[in-house]
């Protein structure tokens, strides 16, 4: 009874409109976060593989160069990298190459590619030499061996570590707010200022958690899918 009374009062009030408006804004921000997330994965997963292969190359200059790249990417804060990617072309060369959103995608991609590269490398190096030898005596080319024999096994082994990075990426999208991209965190901050209430922070927490709950489900089902062999 009491609950119904409150519900009727709430639905009839102006608060419901404010609530709906706020969630609308937050979800639009979340959509931008999801775009950053998806595009970063789309570009950094393949780029990371190329970096890993180059890092393991016998060409010394290439592997040293990529070691240095990985050092920078892992050794400095992502938030600084975002600012550097966005501002450096303008201040160093007087160029405006891209908008804020593109700058964020570039920064996230090169940063995450470095982490993924090290995960790939660990996976590739964990495959027994015998797999390469068996492929070699059967006449598979190097590319065939990598694509047919090695990588499928690598993917299974690295899935848990990749899952970790993917979950971190969902939360890292909040860093895009530093150059003014209207993703979830920035929208939330604006909302708390506008309404002088901190409830929006709580809602944002719920949205991030929901996204990562979905990510976790997807990762688990991928692991199950690859469970048919050991």
């Amino acid at each position, binding site marked *: 009874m009491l609950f119904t009374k409150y519900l009727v009062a709430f639905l009839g009030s102006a608060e419901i409109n404010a609530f709906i408006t706020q969630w609308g804004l937050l979800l639009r921000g979340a959509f931008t976060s999801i775009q950053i997330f998806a595009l970063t994965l789309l570009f950094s997963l393949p780029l990371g593989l190329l970096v890993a292969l180059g890092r393991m190359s016998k060409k010394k200059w290439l592997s040293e160069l990529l070691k240095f790249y990985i050092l920078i990417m892992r050794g400095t804060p992502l938030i600084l990298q975002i600012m550097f990617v966005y501002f450096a072309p303008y201040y160093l060369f007087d160029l405006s190459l891209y908008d804020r959103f593109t700058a964020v995608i570039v920064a996230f991609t090169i940063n995450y590619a470095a982490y993924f590269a090290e995960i790939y490398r660990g996976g590739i190096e964990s495959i027994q030499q015998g797999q390469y030898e068996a492929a070699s005596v*059967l006449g598979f080319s190097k590319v065939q061996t990598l694509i047919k024999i090695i990588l499928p096994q690598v993917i299974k082994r690295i899935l848990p570590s990749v899952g970790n990075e993917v979950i971190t990426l969902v939360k890292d999208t909040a860093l895009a707010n530093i150059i003014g991209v209207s993703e979830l965190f920035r929208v939330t901050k604006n909302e708390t200022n506008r309404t002088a209430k901190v409830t929006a922070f709580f809602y944002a927490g719920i949205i991030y958690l929901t996204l990562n709950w979905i990510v976790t489900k997807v990762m688990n089902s991928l692991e199950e899918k690859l469970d048919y062999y050991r």
Partner: protein
Amino acid sequence: MQIIRVEGLSKNYGENTVLSNFSFEVNKGEVIAIIGPSGSGKSTMLRCLSLLEKIDTGNVTVGGRVMVETGADGKAQYASEKELKKIKLQMGMVFQNFNLFPHFSVLRNITEAPVHVLGISQIEARKIAIELLDKIGLSEKVKSYPWQLSGGESQRVAIARALAMKPDILFFDEPTSALDPELTGEVLKVMKNLAAENMTMVVVTHEMGFAREVADRVIFMDKGKIVEEGSPDDIFVSSENERTQSFIKGFYV
């Protein structure tokens, strides 16, 4: 007819000489057993022939094609990539640890190379694979994955995988050494059947019984050199070489 000819092959790991001035030949249809103590270079020998390791000097000819020969500078010079690939396809290899592809079913382990290396059709490759599995008594394992097989079954599948490429010669690198003793029999039986079909085989083994019964010729190696070479009787019964005698005695005590 000679199928493999090795002359003056030497191989070093740094300052360590693993094979020194090694010469032998393999004739078509012959079964050769290479025996000898651990570290004598037996496996390295096979790995050099199957191009998993490079040699330092020497000549190797496979099926009339020059795989490698000593150049004017005294160093081994390998044939072109294209030529090496052709040579590789004449040879099959069975490893101590099977090295099956864990993410492929038994069937696909056998069909993958015929389809993607030789370019034969899926249907044809399947037919060959099923025939081979039938022959080694594993028809019911077509859809199994390697982790579901015993060691003996894995090794038989590995043999079928090598045979599906229709090689002229098959190398075995201690094919039963990783198996429980009661599982070696089923693998040796498959190998004996192959020998009876005149498959050319070079077998590095510690199975003295197999070497004695099945091999046409036995090579006894020690410290990277051939100590003695001859018929099983020459080696196991009438050898006058002290090193050979003490090695063989070690197995029957």
